[in-house]
């Protein structure tokens, strides 16, 4: 066992775990104060149920066996892991990835989804969508992986997957009352900025940890993660300044996240200057992509599609241009700019196309089934009153302690 590698992967797991609370604050600050606890709970729920599911069965189905489409049951209940090697550390590292992926979707359904439906949706989606797609993209025998498409830390398997699933889910869920006329401005920009900082911090574990070793590729991934986030934030902020007149905190936060999303699939395959380019391109593209929802009329509350789907696609496709095996010192297919021709770009397009088709289809059916059975949307009154009260019987910011007496 290489103790350095195990150490880095375990630290990486803790870093990635921290991203989910970070995401909760990033999203939580952006919703109105009557819905912030619901948003936090949707995210924390993923950390409760998904890692359990992952160790019990998800990991085995996502990495066991030698099939091309899905794993097997050889490693269920934590069986068959060799604690003299890396696999147990990698298994629990990946549990944190499984947890944050459905959490990403929560931003799209903000302000109106019945919590019980979310509680059921998360584990079902993890098993039916996340696990198979992860097998295709990451397992050694998975068909997309075997064809030679590249996804270093989860651009396709996580961000594109969650982004397109968000679209399917909100098409069933419907628009918020009064959207887009009424709007819903953020209730706490400081929470958004704090969440952004936590996400950025955790993302070093996500991306550099995905080298699964403490080596040069991990360092390159770390550097790219740093640079792409900065470049993404800068690009979004500058575009906003020239279009709308101000540098906004939300623009900076959104650009940082867009840059982080886009560099996720690419970070171990591209050199530093390409990392800057990918981050900047993602920041710019996503700053325009977020207006798609108004054009097409889907209520993606916190722009999960505009940032995660679009940012993930940008980063994943740009690997087809920027992948540089000589620059990294590893063996993988080179991109167009480094003598690999168009083959890699084609594989990236196929991998994302297949992921989007499968994820959209299964998520749409899952949402329809939940809608028809338990219902996925809160009542109109609950939506007006706020989900913190109606779904959780709690208040985020309690300004009336003096009038609160115990009733039991």
């Amino acid at each position, binding site marked *: 066992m290489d103790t350095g590698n195990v150490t880095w992967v375990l630290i990486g797991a803790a870093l990635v775990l921290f991203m989910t609370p970070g995401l909760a604050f990033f999203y939580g600050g952006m919703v109105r104060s009557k819905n912030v606890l619901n948003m936090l709970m949707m995210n924390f729920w993923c950390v409760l149920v998904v890692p359990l599911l992952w160790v019990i069965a998800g990991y085995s189905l996502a990495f066991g066996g030698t099939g091309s489409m899905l794993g097997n049951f050889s490693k269920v209940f934590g069986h068959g892991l060799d604690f003299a090697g890396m696999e147990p550390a990698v298994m629990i590292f990946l549990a944190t990835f499984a947890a944050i992926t459905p959490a990403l979707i929560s931003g799209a359904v903000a302000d109106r989804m019945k919590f019980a439906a979310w509680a059921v949706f998360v584990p079902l989606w993890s098993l039916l969508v996340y696990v198979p797609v992860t097998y295709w993209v990451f397992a050694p025998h998975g068909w997309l992986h075997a064809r030679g498409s590249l996804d270093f830390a989860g651009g396709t398997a996580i961000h594109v997957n969650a982004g397109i699933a968000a679209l399917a889910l909100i098409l069933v869920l419907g628009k918020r009352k009064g959207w*887009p006329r009424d709007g819903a401005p953020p209730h706490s920009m400081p929470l958004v900025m704090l969440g952004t900082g936590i996400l950025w911090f955790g993302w070093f574990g996500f991306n550099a940890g995905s080298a699964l070793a403490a080596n040069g590729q991990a360092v390159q991934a770390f550097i790219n993660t740093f640079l792409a986030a900065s470049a993404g934030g800068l690009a979004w902020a500058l575009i*906003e300044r020239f279009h*709308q007149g101000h540098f906004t905190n939300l623009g900076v936060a959104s650009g940082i996240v867009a840059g982080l999303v886009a560099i996720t699939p690419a970070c171990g395959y591209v050199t530093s200057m390409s990392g800057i380019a990918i981050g900047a391109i993602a920041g710019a593209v996503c700053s325009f992509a977020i207006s798609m929802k108004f054009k097409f009329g889907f209520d993606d509350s916190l722009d999960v599609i505009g940032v995660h789907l679009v940012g993930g696609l940008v980063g994943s496709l740009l690997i087809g241009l920027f992948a540089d095996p000589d620059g990294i010192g590893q063996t993988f297919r080179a991109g167009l700019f480094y003598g690999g021709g168009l083959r890699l770009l084609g594989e990236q397009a196929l991998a994302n196309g297949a992921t989007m088709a499968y994820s959209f289809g299964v998520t749409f059916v899952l949402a329809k089934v939940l809608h028809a059975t338990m219902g996925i949307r809160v009542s109109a009154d609950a939506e007006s009153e706020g989900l913190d009260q109606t779904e959780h019987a709690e208040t985020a910011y309690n300004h009336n302690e003096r009038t609160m007496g115990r009733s039991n």
Partner: protein
Amino acid sequence: MKLVTAIIKPFKLDDVKSALKAIGVEGITVTAVEGFGRQGGHSETYRGSEYQIDFIPKIKVETVVADDAVARVVDEIVEAARTNKIGDGKVWITPVEGVVRIRTGERDEDAI
């Protein structure tokens, strides 16, 4: 007795309080309020969506004073709260029928 109510810019509260203390006003009550007037609101933009903010934060200052002190109190508030820019606020005067100090039971002008 009169109730003097003033709506002022929040950053002028300290000046108003000091001015009133200096002329012997024994107490004021302050509330954070929001409202709109001639000043109008402002707009904020979040991810390209523009929001018009019509209600502007102001401070409401209230104090009950004896009839013969009213003119001076109002003048001091106006002087202290004025910036000569739009949105400085207003002061108005309302008759008060009676006042009781809870601790001692003193009434009316003895209680203010």
